[in-house]
């Protein structure tokens, strides 16, 4: 079935241009073009779309308002902003409801790829309800202690951007949201950023303050509620930091390129973010999964995940990060960290580092987590395992 995509812009000529330039997709996509948010909502009500690409500033309803309403109507829709405004206020308004922001003028292939990628990611997850749950998430909750510390910091006039960045880097939710922001074309950086400290200094103190204190892009998670459901937020954070640091050391030891080292660290930190998403949305299922993994180890977990979700927690996390436009290397490392052999890669990548680091970080648990030996053999680096184990202990 063709994917249905809705384009919204108050400039007729612009819509005409997009329609013509995307003509090559006519066999895969069914494209609709409308001139206002109102029309877009009316159409979406009667016939759901798979993706929407909207202008930001339009007479009457603006792009942010449109997306806010669409999220309720149809949470699973892929939401992309294509805006010509560099107005910060406008940008901030769409920080939550949009998955990705592209700037006009935007290379048509770039736009095309962003949409294609979002659709491809969706293939990771077969369950429509789950797709809707993840797509509908505007942000993730942070560890309350970190959140409160950050808010305190932002009210202190002496604090440096660097210190704020280091704070952001400690939290899964803040790290992913802030990287979504800086990697969007809105901030016009044109290069990929994988480090929250860099992200913070690029955004600048005023923007961060605005985002945190008035837009409220971060929130606190209800730790005790999650705890009562058998999910330890603290343990997730501790494990994530550990895997991030081991993955980075492994990538360095393998003389990987700088970008791979950075991806490894970031993907290591975010690899289990899917668990947080599940804990927030489907706590019963997560509980089942945890029981299954206690009984049957990794295989048990996989089996249970496939049964219950039609995907893995890696897929869940990857889908959200991918929608948010995080770098591809990071997204696939998160998606396949338990099963790296599923990808045809034959080279050391962030995925390799995260997979190995995750296994090593679980070493003491003796729950049947093991390396994907076939994969490591294919890459010809199976003999490095002992060295990595030493690294992990340091």
């Amino acid at each position, binding site marked *: 079935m063709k994917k249905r995509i809705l384009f919204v812009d108050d*400039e007729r*000529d*612009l819509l*005409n*241009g*997009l329609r*013509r*330039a995307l*003509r*090559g997709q*006519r066999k895969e996509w069914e494209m609709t073009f409308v001139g*206002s948010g*109102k029309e877009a909502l009316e159409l979406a009500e009667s016939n759901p779309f798979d993706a929407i690409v909207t202008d930001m*500033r*339009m*007479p*009457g*309803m603006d792009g942010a*308002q449109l997306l806010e309403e669409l999220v309720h109507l149809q949470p699973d829709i892929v939401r992309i902003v294509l805006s*010509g*405004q*560099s*107005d910060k*206020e406008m940008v901030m308004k769409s920080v939550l409801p949009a998955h990705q922001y592209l*700037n*006009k*003028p*935007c*290379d*048509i292939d770039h736009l095309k790829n962003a949409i294609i990628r979002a659709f491809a990611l969706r293939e990771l997850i077969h369950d429509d309800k789950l797709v809707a749950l993840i797509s509908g998430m505007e942000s993730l909750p942070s560890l309350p202690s970190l959140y409160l510390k950050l808010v305190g910091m932002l009210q202190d006039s002496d604090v440096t951007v660097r210190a704020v960045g280091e704070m952001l880097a400690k939290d899964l939710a803040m790290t992913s949201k802030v990287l979504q922001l800086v990697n969007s074309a809105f901030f016009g950086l044109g290069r990929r950023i994988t480090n929250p400290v860099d992200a913070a200094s690029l955004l600048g103190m005023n923007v961060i303050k605005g985002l945190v204190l008035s837009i409220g892009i971060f929130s606190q998670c209800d730790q005790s509620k999650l705890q009562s459901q058998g999910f330890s937020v603290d343990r997730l954070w501790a494990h994530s930091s550990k895997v991030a640091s081991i993955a980075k050391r492994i990538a360095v030891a393998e003389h990987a390129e700088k970008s791979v080292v950075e991806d490894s660290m970031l993907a290591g930190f975010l690899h289990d973010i899917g668990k947080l998403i599940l804990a927030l949305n489907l706590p019963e299922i997560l509980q089942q999964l945890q029981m299954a993994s206690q009984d049957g180890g990794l295989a048990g977990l996989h089996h249970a995940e496939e049964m219950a979700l039609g995907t893995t927690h890696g897929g869940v996390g990857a889908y959200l990060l991918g929608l948010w436009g995080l770098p591809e290397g990071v997204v696939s490392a998160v998606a396949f960290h338990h099963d790296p052999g599923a990808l045809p890669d034959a080279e050391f990548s962030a995925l390799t580092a995260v997979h190995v680091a995750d296994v090593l970080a679980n070493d003491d648990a003796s729950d049947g987590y093991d390396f994907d030996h076939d994969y490591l053999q294919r890459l010809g680096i199976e003999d490095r395992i002992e060295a990595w184990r030493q690294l992990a202990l340091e």
Partner: protein
Amino acid sequence: MNQVERFARRCERERSARNQAERLLEEKSLELYHANVGLKQLARDLAEKEQRSSSILDAAVDGIVTVDEQGRIDSFNHAAEMIFGCSQKEAIGLDFSLFMESDEMNGGSIGDLSVGVLGNRTMIREINGKRSDETIFPMDLALSETYLGERRLLILVIRDISQRKQAELERVKMELQLRQAQKLEAIGQLAAGIAHEINTPTQFVSDNTSFLQDAFQDIKKLCGFRHRVIEAVEADTLTPELIETAKAVADDIDIDYLHDEIPEAIEQSLEGLRRIKKIVGAMKEFSHPGTEEKSCIDINQAIRSTVEVSRNEWKYFAEMVLELDPALPATPCLPGELNQAILNLIVNAAHAIEDQAEDDSDSLGTITIRTLKRDERVEIKVTDTGCGVSEDISGRIFDPFFTTKQVGKGTGQGLAIAYSSIVDRHGGTIGLESEIGRGTTFTITLPVNMASVKTG
């Protein structure tokens, strides 16, 4: 008369003469005494007066100096000592021109200054003085003359105005900075808007071009088949399969679609390029680099370019209607400042309409700009269908920093700047009529005649 009688008479006469003389003497010495007493009193009075006037002189905050006709200093009060940094003792007898910047007197003396000029009048001038440490400072000099008997004296009252001057300078500087800041802010905001106005056509011009590129590949493919068909016809090898394939290719590339869309893609791309060209041109006109002097300009054109560069500020809220009098004469203006003033009015109008509009409604308000010539003046009217200005604030809206807008939306400088450039720098007027909930009209008038224009 006998001897004795005569003698007795003589004695009598002498006695009376002596008495008389004694009386006279007594009288005279009494007179003398009184005169002496009076004199003493007078002297005392005089001394007191002298004391008083010199202490008044010394207590005066202004420097008071008297000079003789040769320009030599005759007296020098305490304030003068302070101002010039020179004691009275040192000053007396010196030529007063030593206390003035040398080119003030053209080499002449202060005495020359007043010859024939003064009469009973006082002359006030602003000149540069010179302190004993050679520093130059601005002073107000009031000059009057007086006669002491035959001697002509000039009285100089001197006020050091360097502080006042400094404050004035600071004020002018600050005003300039404010104006500059507002200009920069406006330019910053405009730049974002202009970028948007350029980015949009750039997007569709590039999309259309990339479509044309693809379309050309498709057409090339079709041409290839056409060629093969022709060759086959010529060689008499044409098969129904070949015809079918050629048809299929034509269907596949949707030749009808291309046929309709290619001309439109080209037309719209050209239109996009025209839009870019127009805004770039308007930008150049709007910013008017380096025109700090009045020049005669076409106000209508200035309005058109200002409307163009500010399009992004109003187009989401309002339609723009221009009713520009083609017979408008060229008008002496500081183009940059006039543009700025009109821009501020347009932005305010857009804000007022935005304020008035209901949320989510797609209906636009209207901004109308009219020009016309009335007597020796050019009138520019900017009318909006916005929220209107209420009676109680209409007296304050031209005040610097008066705003009803939230932080980030307005700083309250727009109208203050417009006022100072129109009224102070163009000798024009600016006023408004408004009705709450209906709209507002701001009217600017500018003198057309160069001569009636005060230079700024």
